C-alpha cells in the first residue's frame, strides 16, 4: 500500500522524513506529489535504500485553466512516474478525466468542484483515477467536515456506478499527518466505505507506479510489444 504525500517545501516534512515514518507505519512506498510550483529536490533511490520503502517521483499539477494544466501535464509526463491534477473546479475536473496522460484527479470534490455521471464515465474510459481524499475528514471539523464527508459519499456512489478506478489518500503534508493503512481503513468504514475499497484505493497508487515504470522503461515499445534480447528466448 502506498501513500501520496506533499513534502517540503510543499509541506512541513522532507521526503526522507515522510519515507521513514511511512516505512514504520507499514506502507510499501510513498508517491511524492508536490504541486508543480513547489517541487522537492531529493534522491529517490538513496531515500528508498535507507528506509526500505519505495519512493516515487510524482507531481500534482495545479493550474487555473485547462489549457495551462494541459501544458504542465505535458511537461511533467516524461520525467515523472505519477502525474496527478489538482482538482476542485468543474473545468479542471472535466479536463483531467478526458486526458489519458493523467493518472489521478486529486480531491475532485474540494472547494467548488463537483462530479457527475458523465465525468465518472469519462474517467472510467480514460483510466483516470479519482482520489478519495480523507484529508478534510481527518483534519477539519464542523461544517467543512460534513461537506467533505458528503462529497466522498457522492463520489463513491458515482465511482461504483461507473466502475471508475480510484485511489485513497490522507493527503499528508507532514509526517504528523500520515496515518497507518489499518487506521485509514477504520476511518473509511465509519464513512461507509468497505475495508476492501480503502485497501484497493491505497494499493492502486502502487499499481499506477508499476504500470508507468513499465511503460517508461527502455524495453517498452507499445502495448503488448516489448523489446527483449535474443538470449531470453532459451
Amino acid at each position, binding site marked *: 500500500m502506498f501513500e501520496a504525500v506533499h513534502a517540503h517545501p510543499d509541506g512541513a516534512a522532507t521526503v526522507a*522524513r515522510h519515507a521513514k515514518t511511512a516505512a514504520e507505519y507499514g506502507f510499501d512506498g510513498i508517491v511524492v506529489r508536490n504541486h508543480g510550483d513547489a517541487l522537492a529536490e531529493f534522491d529517490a533511490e538513496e531515500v528508498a535504500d535507507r528506509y526500505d520503502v519505495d519512493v516515487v517521483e510524482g507531481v500534482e499539477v495545479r493550474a487555473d485553466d485547462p489549457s495551462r494544466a494541459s501544458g504542465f501535464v505535458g511537461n511533467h509526463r516524461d520525467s515523472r512516474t505519477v502525474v496527478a491534477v489538482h482538482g476542485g473546479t468543474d473545468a479542471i475536473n472535466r479536463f483531467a478525466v478526458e486526458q489519458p496522460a493523467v493518472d489521478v484527479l486529486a480531491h475532485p470534490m474540494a472547494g467548488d468542484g463537483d462530479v457527475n455521471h458523465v465525468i465518472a464515465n469519462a474517467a472510467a474510459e480514460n483510466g483516470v483515477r479519482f482520489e478519495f481524499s480523507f484529508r478534510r475528514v481527518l483534519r477539519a471539523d464542523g461544517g467543512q467536515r460534513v461537506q467533505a464527508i458528503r462529497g466522498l459519499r457522492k463520489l463513491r456512489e458515482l465511482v461504483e456506478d461507473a466502475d471508475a478506478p480510484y485511489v485513497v489518500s490522507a493527503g499528508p503534508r507532514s509526517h*504528523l499527518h500520515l496515518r497507518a493503512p489499518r*487506521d485509514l481503513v477504520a476511518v473509511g468504514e465509519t464513512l461507509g466505505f468497505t475495508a476492501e475499497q480503502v485497501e484497493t484505493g491505497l494499493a492502486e497508487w502502487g499499481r499506477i507506479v508499476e504500470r508507468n515504470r513499465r511503460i517508461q522503461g527502455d524495453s517498452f515499445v507499445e502495448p503488448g510489444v516489448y523489446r527483449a534480447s535474443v538470449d531470453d528466448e532459451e
Partner: protein
Amino acid sequence: MKHLPKHLQPRWRYLAVELEGWPDASFGRGTFQRDLWFAAQNLVGDTGSAEVDLSVLRFAFEDGAGHAIVRARRGETDRARAVLACLDAVDGDEVGVRVRGVSGTVRACEEKYIRSPPEPTDQRNVVFENAERRAVARDGRIDVRTDDAFVGATELDL
C-alpha cells in the same frame, strides 16, 4: 456499589497508541483525554462515543514523543481506531497518532507494543538548505527550527 458478577462485567480491549509531535508540543493526560472525547463525539456522535467508551489509562508525552494506552469496549476497536486517527491536534499542538496494537490486558499491551522510555532528544546546530539552524534530534529524526515553524527531516537531509 458492589461490583458486578464476572459475566456481567464489561469486556475491554486496550489500544497501544504511539504519539508524535513537534518538539515544542506539550500537553498532559487530561488534555489528551478531553480532545480524544471531542474527537469521538465529532466522528461517531454521542451514541457512538458511549458505545466505544474510550478512556486513557496510561499516558506519557514529552519533547514531541510519547505513548498512551486507551481502553475501548471489546468489539468497538475499529471505531476506536478511527477516532484516534481523526485526532489531529491536542491542545492546538499537531500530533501524529498510530495504533501500534491491541491487547486484552494492559500488561500485555505495555509489554508487547510500548517501547519505553523514549530516546532522549539532543539539541544541536545543523546546516539545512544552506543555512545554519537549531534542531532537535532523536533516533535519526531531526526537527529543524526554521523562521516560523519546524520542518521534519532526517539525517539524510543534512
